[in-house]
């Protein structure tokens, strides 16, 4: 290449000086050859073992490509890059700042009654007795007061059950009352009804249209699988769901309906079928969840039916299938993967309450149970149904938002759920992309922190993250699709 005019200096005049300093980092083995190095704010570099050693010993050549990458990602700095510290501070603040918004998601369990008898359901009751399992209007009003005491500028109110449409009168009341309060408060207010859609009628659809209400429904896959998982007395749950999805979309708009699947042992060999079903029904998102260790599922020993390795096979095959679907030009993203990618590549990280530091217990989501009790997470109330009330934060009858947030027990849970100070997590290279799941560890190990060496949560996180980093490194086609999910 032709050089610059003599009055200009060439690149060597601006090369870094040979001594560099390390910024905080963690590392973890990726495979036999490679390691993942992460910064406190979740940026990462994949290196060989020799490179890792040279890097940590301050022996890397400062003019090489790896040095540039480590420097650009603020894993090292030198004389000319003191601003690295300022940028790192800004990034750290950006990532943790949302915690100060406190609770954005507010779940109203308006009834426990349900017409389904799903094998994995943690909570529902099949009964005609309205008084025992429906939320009282007085409790709903008290819950709303709490909702608007939260400082979060974006409030999402989600109705759950049981089947919330069986107590639609209260749903209506809460929506109207919330909007009335919001006329003054001017939050970004959103409503979601988690429903099996069996009871969708025109009155409900009209109301939903008027108030921009979203629906989240359950869809476990093709008809036989779905119906086997979700028995509906005297009916066909799959037909009801598919029909409800179509009607809700027609009335409200396509994007107003999303679906959530639950993984059961019967799902494991059929991930491709499940995904194809989602594509066929025009969904652009699917969440390959693992079976949760709560409620009915554990009682029926369903959870023992498969272990984490089976689920991982399910996930990896599923992700491969989804990537192939995307390469055909169909847009479909996998949510668990998207959350991880968000944590790896987006400055804000992810707002998914189950993968945060500290955990999203209460500060991410609050659950107002049918009986007036307050829980810090949906899993917390499921655990309560199993007789463990450790995530109960008192009753709507005597709590304010402030008293919930400053509750000693909650403070302790939050403190214990900082992976930065948990054994194993503190040194784990995946820490910035991971989180804590105190409810899971309480349910499985009877301890909020949990021993990560024996934790299915940890095993799953490690495997998923290793798989993703490997795909990002080794498969350019996969990388292109994955990056479009960030």
């Amino acid at each position: 290449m032709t050089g610059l005019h003599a009055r200009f200096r060439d690149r060597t005049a601006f090369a870094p000086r040979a001594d560099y300093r390390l910024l905080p980092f963690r590392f973890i083995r990726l495979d036999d050859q490679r390691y993942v190095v992460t910064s406190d704010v979740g940026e990462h570099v994949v290196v060989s073992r020799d490179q890792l050693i040279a890097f940590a010993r301050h022996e890397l050549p400062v003019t090489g490509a790896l040095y540039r990458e480590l420097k650009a990602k603020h894993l090292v700095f030198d004389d000319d890059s003191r601003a690295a510290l300022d940028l790192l501070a800004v990034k750290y603040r950006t990532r943790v700042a949302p915690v100060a918004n406190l609770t954005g998601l507010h779940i109203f369990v308006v009834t426990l009654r349900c017409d389904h008898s799903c094998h994995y359901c943690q909570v529902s009751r099949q009964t005609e007795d309205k008084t025992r399992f429906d939320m009282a209007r007085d409790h709903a009003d008290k819950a709303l007061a709490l909702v608007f005491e939260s400082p979060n500028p974006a409030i999402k109110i989600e109705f759950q059950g049981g089947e919330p449409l069986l107590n639609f009168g209260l749903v209506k009341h809460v929506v109207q009352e919330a909007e009335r309060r919001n006329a003054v408060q001017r939050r970004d207010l959103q409503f979601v009804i988690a429903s099996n859609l069996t009871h969708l009628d025109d009155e409900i659809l009209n109301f939903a249209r008027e108030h921009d209400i979203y629906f989240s429904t359950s869809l476990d896959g093709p008809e036989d699988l779905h119906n086997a998982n979700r028995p509906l007395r005297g009916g066909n749950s799959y037909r009801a769901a598919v029909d409800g999805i179509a009607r809700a979309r027609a009335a409200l708009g396509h994007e107003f309906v999303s679906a959530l699947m639950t993984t059961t042992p019967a799902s494991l060999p059929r991930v491709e079928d499940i995904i194809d079903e989602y594509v066929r029904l025009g969904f652009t998102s699917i969440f390959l969840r693992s079976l949760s260790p709560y409620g009915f599922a554990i009682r029926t020993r369903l959870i023992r039916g498969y272990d984490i390795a089976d689920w991982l096979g399910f996930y990896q095959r599923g992700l491969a299938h989804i990537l192939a679907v995307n390469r055909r030009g169909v847009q479909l993203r996998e949510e668990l993967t998207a959350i991880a990618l968000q944590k790896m590549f987006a400055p804000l990280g992810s707002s998914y309450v189950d993968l945060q530091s500290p955990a999203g217990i209460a500060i991410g989501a609050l659950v107002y149970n049918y009986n007036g009790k307050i829980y810090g997470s949906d899993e917390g109330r499921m655990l309560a149904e199993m007789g463990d009330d450790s995530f109960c934060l008192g009753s709507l009858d005597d709590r304010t938002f402030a008293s919930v947030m400053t509750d000693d027990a909650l403070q302790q849970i939050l403190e214990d759920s900082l992976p930065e100070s948990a054994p194993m997590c503190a040194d784990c290279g995946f820490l910035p992309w991971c989180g804590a799941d105190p409810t899971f560890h309480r349910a499985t190990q009877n301890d909020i922190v949990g021993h990560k060496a024996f934790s299915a949560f940890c095993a799953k996180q490690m495997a998923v993250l290793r798989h993703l980093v490997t795909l990002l490194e080794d498969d350019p086609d996969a990388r292109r699709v994955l990056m479009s999910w960030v």
Partner: protein
Amino acid sequence: MLLKLSGRGLRALGEVSSRPFIGRISTDVAQRGPNEIWLARGGAGVPDGFRAYLLAGPRPVMPPRDSYALGPEFSYLSDGDVIRIEPDRGAVHAIYRRNSRTNSLLVTERCNNYCVMCSQPPKDRDDSWIIDDLLQAIPLMSPDTGEIGITGGEPSLLGPRLIELVRCLGQCLPATAVHILSNGRGFATGDLAKALAQLHHPDLMLGIPLYADVPEHHDYVVQARGAFDETIRGILNLKRHGVRVELRFVMHAETYEGLPAFARFVARNLLFVDHVALMGLELMGFARTNLDALWIDPLDYQRELREAVETLHRARLRVSIYNTPLCVLTPDLHPFARASISDWKNAYMDECDGCALRTQCGGFFASSTLRRSRGIARVRLG
């Protein structure tokens, strides 16, 4: 059309002032005043009460003081333009043209960078008179002016005087957008960023060049060790105080390879900037001096450019491509391209005649005839 903004276009017709002065062009007798310069259209009589007279046609019998014959290359001057006249050199300089979409005020020629492609090479001499002139000129500009650019040299070297200038703009032209082209280093420490923010100018943006994700590459391009750090700190400071910032990346042979890394760096670290402009190279100043080292056909960096645009766009940053003819960009990049070249620098080539994209296209810097992309070709819509 290429306009000549300064030159020795004046011939004194009689007695003239001893010092340079500034005034506003007028063709309306009723506008007479100490800051107005009469521009004769044809041979009508010469009214009194103007600061100076630019005359066409025959010399009047008794020309008033500061009467000049105006050279034809300045015939574009018209009502409302603000000019500076240097009587002893017979020079005229158009500071502001009322009918132009973009008026740039050069506020100093001094700079603490020495960019390898600088289109306006810095000169290290005291030119503080410039800002005195501008403070006089600004009140004469039309309040309807859409945008005023401030360029250099490096405006932040003026320190408090820059603040004075922006205050003056805000007071005299409250509806006019102000765009300051600065390397940002002057805002790294001290109170300049805060002082600028405290003006609460209604429509102010700083355009700050950033050329890489790491100091060694940026510092090389701007030929100043430590510049990257100061620029980054300047950007952080400005944003901290609420001043809008646009990043500018000039694409040439010494920068284009770093485009994707630059974009990733911005998307991760500087997500709060208000705009990112990726700019074609203007073949002026040092870009000419270093032409062989810096020229690369834009066709040959389309891959890097596309990746960078994708990264920035996905991060929800506003991205624009400046100074690049549409025919060299792949169609998926067209929505990001802006016709941005100032009218007095803008030109087209023969191929452009009858091109379907001509009205949306930015065309060329007049200077770019020195080197042309293999991609220039008339586009016909099928």
